[in-house]
Structures are given as structure tokens and as C-alpha cells.
């Protein structure tokens, strides 16, 4: 009878430590392990988010395409250069600085895709004789140099290396492209052929550059590009140097 009582009491008390142990285990789980897991998870989330942001920034940076043109403002302002920019890319581009040799001007100008803007006229105070290199920096850290190369200031006048017509072709197959460049005869209002070239195109985009210094400026140029007998490009561009850039683009 006594043995039975003792056994019953022993059975009754035997689970207390187990219960307390379980309570401690659960409290450890909820006060230490779960916060650790939550904090680690949050750190991972922040990491993944920032990594994605940086990847996006890098992609946007690589897609930035800015064409910078620089040309004399006018004969009445011989020390000034006009800066014109064309955003050829599909991304918005913010220009933060314009460099004239070792000096820069800060600005904030955002260009939408395919927007062409004259940023303004800048007194660059050139030495005579001297060279002026122009470039623009974007907020994503890209530096785009003047399409026409260096500008030379000699005897109070601006000069350049060459007049160029750049033809951009976008064609998604491998092909031999035949370019024919024409110039407009002002007197007859007729086109005369001045250059011809055949280029092996390996898909995507390609640029063919024509040196038209010998034909002078202002002038109007027309380029016809063919694959076999198929015309893939027929466009014109006007060159207005020295009151415009010495480089013009013929785009599809």
C-alpha cells in the first residue's frame, strides 16, 4: 500500500524537470535562434537588394550612349564653344560635368532617350595656338569625348582634323554591305556619288566612317546601304561646320 503511494507520487513528479527543460529549450529557440535566423535573413535580403541595384546600375551604365559635339559658337565670340549632346541610348542620361582640357564646369542636365540638346555656349579661354579637348561625364561615371576629336585654336580661328560622316547600320544577319555616299550639288539640286565601300557585317550594329574633308562644309550627304539589291538604309545628314559639328551621323 505504501509502495503504491510512493510510486504514484514519483510518477506525478517525474515530468516536472522535463517540462522545465522543454520550456528552456523553447525559450532558447525563441529568444536566441529565431532572432538570429531573422537577423541573418534580413542581412541576406539587404545584400540581395543592394546587389541587384548595383547590377542594374552597371547595366544602365553600359547602355549609356552619348554623342558629344563641340563647335565654335560664332565669329563674334571666338573664345566660345557650343556643346551639343545627343542621347543615342535607351537610358536616361544625366550629365554632371563638361571638361575643357583640365578644367571642368559642373551642371545637372538629364537627357531622355534619343533627345538632342544644346547644353550651351562656354568660354574656354583657349591659348593661341592651343588644343581644346572636350568631354562630358555622366552621373553613372561614363566619360564621353567629343565626336569630332580635338579642336585647334590657331590665329584666332578654330580648326579640326577632319570632317566625318558616320553611318550606323543595324542589321541582324551576317552580310556584305555596300555603302554609297552621295553629296548634294547645290546648283543642280542633284546627288553625285563621292564614296563607295564594301564592308563585311557580322550582325548587330556597325559603323562606317567616311572622311569628307575634301568636299568641304556646309554640305548635305546621303548614304545608301545595300545588301545585294536590297536597300537597308537610305538617309541624309547635313553638315554645318563651323557653325555645327564636324561629325554628322546617318542613322537608320
Amino acid at each position, binding site marked *: 500500500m505504501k509502495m503504491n503511494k510512493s510510486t504514484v*507520487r*514519483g510518477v506525478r*513528479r517525474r515530468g*516536472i*524537470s522535463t517540462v*522545465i*527543460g522543454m*520550456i*528552456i*529549450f523553447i*525559450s*532558447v529557440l525563441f*529568444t*536566441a*535562434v529565431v*532572432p*538570429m535566423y531573422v*537577423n*541573418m535573413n534580413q*542581412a*541576406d535580403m*539587404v*545584400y540581395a537588394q*543592394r*546587389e541587384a*541595384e*548595383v547590377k542594374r*546600375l552597371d547595366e544602365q551604365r553600359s547602355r549609356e550612349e552619348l554623342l558629344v559635339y563641340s563647335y565654335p559658337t560664332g565669329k563674334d565670340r571666338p573664345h566660345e564653344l557650343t556643346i551639343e549632346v545627343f542621347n543615342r541610348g535607351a537610358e536616361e542620361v544625366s550629365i554632371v*560635368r563638361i*571638361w575643357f*582640357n*583640365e578644367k*571642368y564646369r559642373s551642371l545637372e542636365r538629364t537627357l531622355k532617350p534619343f533627345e538632342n540638346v544644346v547644353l550651351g555656349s562656354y568660354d574656354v579661354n583657349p591659348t593661341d595656338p592651343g588644343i581644346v579637348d572636350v568631354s562630358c*561625364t555622366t*552621373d*553613372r*561615371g561614363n*566619360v564621353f569625348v567629343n565626336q569630332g576629336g580635338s579642336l585647334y585654336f590657331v590665329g584666332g580661328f578654330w580648326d579640326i582634323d577632319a570632317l566625318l560622316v558616320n553611318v550606323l547600320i543595324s542589321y541582324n544577319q551576317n552580310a556584305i554591305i555596300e555603302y554609297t555616299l552621295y553629296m548634294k550639288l547645290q546648283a543642280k539640286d542633284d546627288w553625285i556619288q563621292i564614296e563607295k565601300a564594301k564592308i563585311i557585317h557580322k550582325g548587330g550594329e556597325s559603323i562606317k566612317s567616311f572622311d569628307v574633308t575634301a568636299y568641304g562644309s556646309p554640305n548635305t550627304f546621303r548614304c545608301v546601304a545595300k545588301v545585294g539589291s536590297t536597300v537597308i538604309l537610305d538617309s541624309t545628314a547635313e553638315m554645318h561646320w563651323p557653325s555645327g559639328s564636324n561629325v554628322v551621323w546617318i542613322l537608320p
Partner: protein
Amino acid sequence: MYNGGLLIFNTEFRLRKGYSSVISSMILTSAVIIIGSILWAYSQSATVVMTNSYVDETFSTLNNLIERFTIEKIYYNDTDKKMILYIYNYGDISITLDIYINSSNGSAFSSSDNNVDRQCLQRIEIPVDVSSGSVLSIKCHTRRSNDVLAKYYVL
């Protein structure tokens, strides 16, 4: 008297009979609580240390990953015999740069502890004495171990 004494002893024994099991239960429970508390405190501190270590390492790796800068402009000032670099930090965290310049004629120059704040352009001047025609290899090394390289031809 003898019988009476035995009776008293038996009665006292019976009165005290439950104490040992209560005490042993209390000792056992106390032991469980103490060991459990130590375990809880240890696990708490261990997880805090582990969490801090993990978070620090993650953010350190992240900072290394998100560092972005470029050498925006380089030129050599022949009069002052100085190399002038404009470093543009277009990232979201400030950087500390060590710059190393090696010339094609074998001479080497450096500049340490150059801080560039986020979204800022920093002008850095480094005393460099090189002759015309030298080719300079420029290496900008951040304290987070990112590099940007450039070459400069001295005219």
C-alpha cells in the same frame, strides 16, 4: 515507555517522510533551471556573436561589391612635376584609395589614404618626375581591394 518511545519515533519519522522527495525534486528542478539558464545564456551570447559576425561579414562583402569609382581625368603638370588625377566616386559609399604609378623607365610613385566621398569628384596630386615619352601605369587600389587601372602617355 519503550513502546511509547518507538511510537513517538515512528510518528516523527512519518511526519518527515515526504521531505526528502520534495527536496530532491527541488534540487533536480533547480539543477534543470540553473543548467537551462546557463545553456540559455550561452546560446543567447553565441547566437548574438554568430549573428553579428555573419551580418558584419555580409555587409563587408556588400560594401566591397557596391564600391564604384572611375579615373575621370588624368594629366601631367610638367611645371610642378605633378600627376593630377580626378577620381569620381559614383557609388553609394565613400572609399579610401592608395594610388601606385609605375613609369616605363622603372621609377615608381605612390600616394596613400586618399578619401573620396560618395558621389564626389576628388582631385589628387602626386609628385611624379618623369621625362617626356614615358608611359605611366596607374593603379588605384581601394582598401576594400577593388582596382581601377589606367595608362598615361607623357607628351
